[in-house]
């Protein structure tokens, strides 16, 4: 029996049914019905995806289903991987959404759109013609936009975030459209097999143009520099389970697009393509995590961290393309496997982190780390979840990201000996960038967890926070299990991912083997995350026991906490997220360029007595300022100029039409 077809059929059925339920079921049961339905949709997607990764295929051609373009679907191993990841994230987020949306988003529209969004996430990686792909891509953008706007009545910033997202995502769509249409014009028709056949006949210039256009388009979806501006805006304002879906599943579609078109349809291509991808990835990784380290809004921080992780993935993809163009397919497969494993890992921990952040938002109404703290007492489960997610994201053993970043570094380092000049400059830089990113990620997540959850509460809302409902905890629990599994026994997923990567790079050798201990093919490198974790745990237990024994010798004494003799110590004396990041900000002053402002007001009687001091600090996104502000200003100026043409006189408008038609006819006559 074809599990792929079964899974996809079930997903489609469940998705459409839950969308209908979102419209028809009355409010009290709506969230539960839609959540369960969407979870089934996602789970069916996982089934189909895993079946596809193990080698089953399935395809469907329905030329009449859509006018002109038709619908063509085909599931292969690469599509299966992204299908499975999207399905898993969707299943977890949907379960969480049952409890979460009861207070935030149980209107008809968001509930009906959620399953549709999940469905488009599942279909994008299996679309097999340009028409189908673009339609699904646009539907994915529109449904996610609607979901971002869920709470626009409650907060004005939501509308602003939605506008940014809509414009950026459509600019990206335009770029993809242009790229794929130029490509299709050289092919027999718009199905992927026809494009594959046409790729060999493309001139390098056209192929390069196509690749650049799709890189811009897919890069904007993946949140890569400098097209990341929508990410830190849309993620904080969307409901948290939607943030998780977007940040853990939707951005992957950008990576999927680059791999699909670059490797599969265009068949590899020139070396400079992949150098560009690698450099963009490295820049995004470092810049993203730097901005995350400076953020005090926890969801904004997570949004920037998505830019970072997609950057790391692109470093892997770029390295893979580089090795493939140099003819080293095994190494290419290794780099690709690292990138794809990081996609899975990122999906797992980012889902967990966004869901935990949503749980905090649900309980306290605040995303500001400086106003949180002390959540450990009121929300132990959420605290544990966020702590696990923070560990997973920090690229330290026994974290989840550690395994994939280790693989990535291995492939980059091993790639050095057989490199040309450009490559041998770029690869060490990439290694340094990945290492710097890993270090900054540790600081970022120590800050987010330590300031947000430990110590004492800094506001009444944080002090009175209570644990979230069971469905939300269940969602976080599932994501947590995925994180732990990927961290301890990546050998479960790695053979499948290695097959996919090998398929892309064109080699039969599995780049990494072994269940408990990962062994790399052709290069020396072994890692056993499980044994490493056991050793770490044993060492930790040993240290704790030794400390206990040592401390028990002279009996412990109760003593007053040293508070400089003054006291009592209040929560205002704690480290805040801002003060924690301050030393880091000083180090990177030239890069982040913070804007500081100190206003001192004196008493009228004397200049020596201070009445009030006001301190403001802002860390604007510098790239945004440099790249976006000039463009926005130019657009505004253009709009003002355009207004002069539209005076409101009907005669004038008729005249425009007349003259344009005449000019067109004259042009046609002259050109004939």
């Amino acid at each position, binding site marked *: 029996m074809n599990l792929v077809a079964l899974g996809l059929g079930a997903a489609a059925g469940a998705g459409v049914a839950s969308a209908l339920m979102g419209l028809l079921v009355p409010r009290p049961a709506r969230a539960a019905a839609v959540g369960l339905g969407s979870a089934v949709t996602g789970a069916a997607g996982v089934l189909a995806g895993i079946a596809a990764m193990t080698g089953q295929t399935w395809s469907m051609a329905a030329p009449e289903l859509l006018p002109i373009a038709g619908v063509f679907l085909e599931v292969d191993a690469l599509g299966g991987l992204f299908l499975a990841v999207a399905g898993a994230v969707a299943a977890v987020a949907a379960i969480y959404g049952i409890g979460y949306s009861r207070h935030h988003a149980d209107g008809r529209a968001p509930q009906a759109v959620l399953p549709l969004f999940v469905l488009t996430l599942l279909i994008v990686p299996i679309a097999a013609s340009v028409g189908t792909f673009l339609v699904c891509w646009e539907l994915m953008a529109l449904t996610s936009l609607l979901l971002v706007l869920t709470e626009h009545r409650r907060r004005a910033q939501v509308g602003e975030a939605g506008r940014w997202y809509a414009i950026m995502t459509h600019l990206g769509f335009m770029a993809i459209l242009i790229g794929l249409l130029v490509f299709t014009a050289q092919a027999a028709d718009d199905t992927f097999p026809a494009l594959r056949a046409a790729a060999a006949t493309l001139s390098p210039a056209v192929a390069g143009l196509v690749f650049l256009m799709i890189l811009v388009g897919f890069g904007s979806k993946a949140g890569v520099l400098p097209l990341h501006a929508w990410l830190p805006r849309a993620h904080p304002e969307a409901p948290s389970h939607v943030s998780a879906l977007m940040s853990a599943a939707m951005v992957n579609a950008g990576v999927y697009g680059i791999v699909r078109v670059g490797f599969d349809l265009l068949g590899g291509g020139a070396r400079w393509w992949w150098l560009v991808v690698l450099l963009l990835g490295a820049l995004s990784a470092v810049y993203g995590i730097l901005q995350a380290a400076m953020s005090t809004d926890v969801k904004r921080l997570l949004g920037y961290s998505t830019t970072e992780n997609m950057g790391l993935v692109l470093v892997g993809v770029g390295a893979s393309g580089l090795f493939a163009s140099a003819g080293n397919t095994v190494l290419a497969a290794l780099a690709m496997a690292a990138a794809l494993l990081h996609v899975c890992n990122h999906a797992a921990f980012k889902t967990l982190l966004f869901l935990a952040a949503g749980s905090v938002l649900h309980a306290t109404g605040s995303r500001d780390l400086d106003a949180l703290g002390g959540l450990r007492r009121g929300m132990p489960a959420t605290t544990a979840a966020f702590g696990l997610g923070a560990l997973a994201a920090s690229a330290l053993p026994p974290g989840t990201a550690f395994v994939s970043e280790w693989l990535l570094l291995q492939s980059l380092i091993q790639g050095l000996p057989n490199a040309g000049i450009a490559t041998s400059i770029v690869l060490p830089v990439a290694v340094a960038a990945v290492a710097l990113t890993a270090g900054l990620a540790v600081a970022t997540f120590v800050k987010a967890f330590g300031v947000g959850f430990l110590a004492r509460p800094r506001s009444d809302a944080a002090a009175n926070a209570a644990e979230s409902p069971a469905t939300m905890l269940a969602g976080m629990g599932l994501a947590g299990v995925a994180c732990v599994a990927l961290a301890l026994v990546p050998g479960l997923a790695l053979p499948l991912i290695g097959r996919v990567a090998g398929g892309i790079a064109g080699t039969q050798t599995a780049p990494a083997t072994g269940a408990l201990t990962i062994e790399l093919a052709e290069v020396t490198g072994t890692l056993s995350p499980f044994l490493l974790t056991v050793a770490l745990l044993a060492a930790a237990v040993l240290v704790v026991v030794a400390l206990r024994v040592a401390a028990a010798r002279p009996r412990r004494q109760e*003593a*007053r906490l*040293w508070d*400089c*003799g*003054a*006291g009592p110590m209040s929560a205002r004396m704690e480290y805040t997220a801002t003060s924690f990041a301050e030393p880091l900000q000083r180090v990177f002053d030239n890069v982040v360029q913070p804007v500081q402002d100190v206003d001192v007001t004196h008493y009228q009687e004397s200049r020596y007595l201070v009445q009030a001091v006001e301190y403001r600090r802002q860390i604007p996104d510098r790239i945004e300022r440099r790249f976006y502000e000039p463009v926005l200003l130019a657009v505004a100026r253009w709009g003002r100029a355009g207004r002069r043409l539209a005076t409101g006189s009907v005669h004038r408008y008729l005249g425009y039409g007349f003259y344009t038609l005449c000019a067109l006819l004259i042009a046609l006559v002259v050109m004939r």
Partner: protein
Amino acid sequence: MVLSLWRKIRRTGRVAEPAPPPPDAAAGPAVAELAGSVQIRHVDAGSCNGCEVEIGSAFGPVYDAERYGARLVAAPRHADALLVTGPVTRNMAVALRRTYEATPEPKVVVAVGDCARDCGVFAGSYGVAGAVRDVVPVDVEISGCPPRPEAIVAALRSLTGR
């Protein structure tokens, strides 16, 4: 920058006074336990800051108290000895007592200056709670207003025994 600093160091050479002979009398029973290394927390309990200037010069390059094993630290939790200056003002009485409690055993209290010994020129003032010995037990007293750095160094050497 660094080069000119090096040049200055080389040109100036050593300015510390030659070390006088070591003290013969040890101050109190704690001294043996401290074994020649005394970490000191300075507490300004209300001084006019004259004593601080002299403490500063006692730890400066000329008198260099650190070569005898005495060292200033930033918290009583790290300290073996308290160096208290000034009369204890009412604002500082509780803080001084807490500082004393926060210092781990074995501990020594040194009262620096006439104010610390018997309130000096501030005796009888409305803001003064008393001399240091009225608030915490004192082991060593250094007289003078302010005491000379030599006197401070000598007192510290009686703690380190070096």
